[in-house]
């Protein structure tokens, strides 16, 4: 992304964007060092036809973590409330439901083989998501991804996946998606 490319003269610091003590800075640098692993590029990691699948429990707490970070406080998503803790919740579909694009966010953790080092340098560029049925909070879903294309456009390398999200218990198809990742 050209607008994000650095040309800055000043050397960035760990605490440029949030206040930190020397202890916090040292902890962050140690964490980043711990992430350094030899990894393949995403382009090299994936072959067309590769299929990966994982099961995710959409607990009330997970939903709250997702929604709070994007500051979406719609009460339909609340299957957890301070003091009361787990509740059935309320939405036009009965109990609490999952934010519409939540499962799309977790596709990343499936299409990147989680048993291998993460291919840092990859950028999610596109998604086309069909929201077929609302997902009740508390559901156990299976996310299945299949690599369906690898292509080069304007000298950039992309990997395309097809995604299905189904209910692990009753087979309901909740979400179908096409998404592209730009690889180094």
């Amino acid at each position, binding site marked *: *992304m050209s*607008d*994000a*490319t*650095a*040309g*800055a003269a000043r*050397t*960035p*610091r*760990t605490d*440029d*964007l*949030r206040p930190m003590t020397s202890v916090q800075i040292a902890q*962050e*640098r140690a964490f*980043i060092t711990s*992430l350094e692993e030899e990894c393949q590029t995403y382009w090299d990691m994936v072959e067309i036809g590769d299929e990966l699948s994982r099961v995710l429990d959409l607990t009330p707490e*997970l939903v709250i*973590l*997702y929604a709070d*970070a*994007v*500051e*979406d406080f*719609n009460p339909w998503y609340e299957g957890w409330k301070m003091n009361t803790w787990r509740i059935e919740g309320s*939405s*036009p*579909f009965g109990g609490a*439901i999952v*934010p*519409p*694009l939540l499962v*799309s*966010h977790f596709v*990343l953790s499936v299409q990147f083989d989680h048993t291998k080092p*993460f291919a*840092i*340098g990859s*950028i*999610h*560029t*596109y*998604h*086309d*998501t*069909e*929201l*077929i*049925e*609302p997902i009740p909070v508390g559901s156990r879903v299976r996310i299945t991804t299949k690599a369906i294309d690898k292509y080069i456009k304007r000298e950039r390398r992309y990997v395309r996946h097809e995604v299905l999200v189904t209910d692990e218990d009753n087979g309901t198809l909740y979400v179908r998606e096409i998404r592209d990742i730009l690889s180094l």
Partner: protein
Amino acid sequence: MTARETQALNLDELRITKDTPVGFELIGVKKKALIQLMGSRLWGRFNPNHWDPVYAAETGLHAPIQTGEMSTAYIAEMCVNHVGAAFFRNARMECKYIASILANDIITTGGVVSAKEPKGDGYRFTLDVWADDEHGQRKTVGTVEVDIDV
């Protein structure tokens, strides 16, 4: 917007109905790309490009960049405000991340009804949607399709 102005906005009037015309403009949501949220465990902490200025600079970025799914979530929130339950069944959302959202950007979503086709007792609406920064630079573009009063 003051508290009085907020109270004056009738949230029910945001709802798109089968009578809503092509050209109707959605009222978006406004968010700041806060580094603490960008780097939270459930979002970007797995990749320091989403929260660490030093690492981001080493990989050629001006600043940490937000994950694309965060702007998707902002646009989805706007859509739920306008179409409610219809966004959760037989709807479609397509998004293209055309520019990076940097830490501290102020993002405002927007949308407009671009088409409506008769379907059942209602219509299949098409919305053009987007997310812009405070300088008006477009960061995310997309379309949404949703059944209203079908």
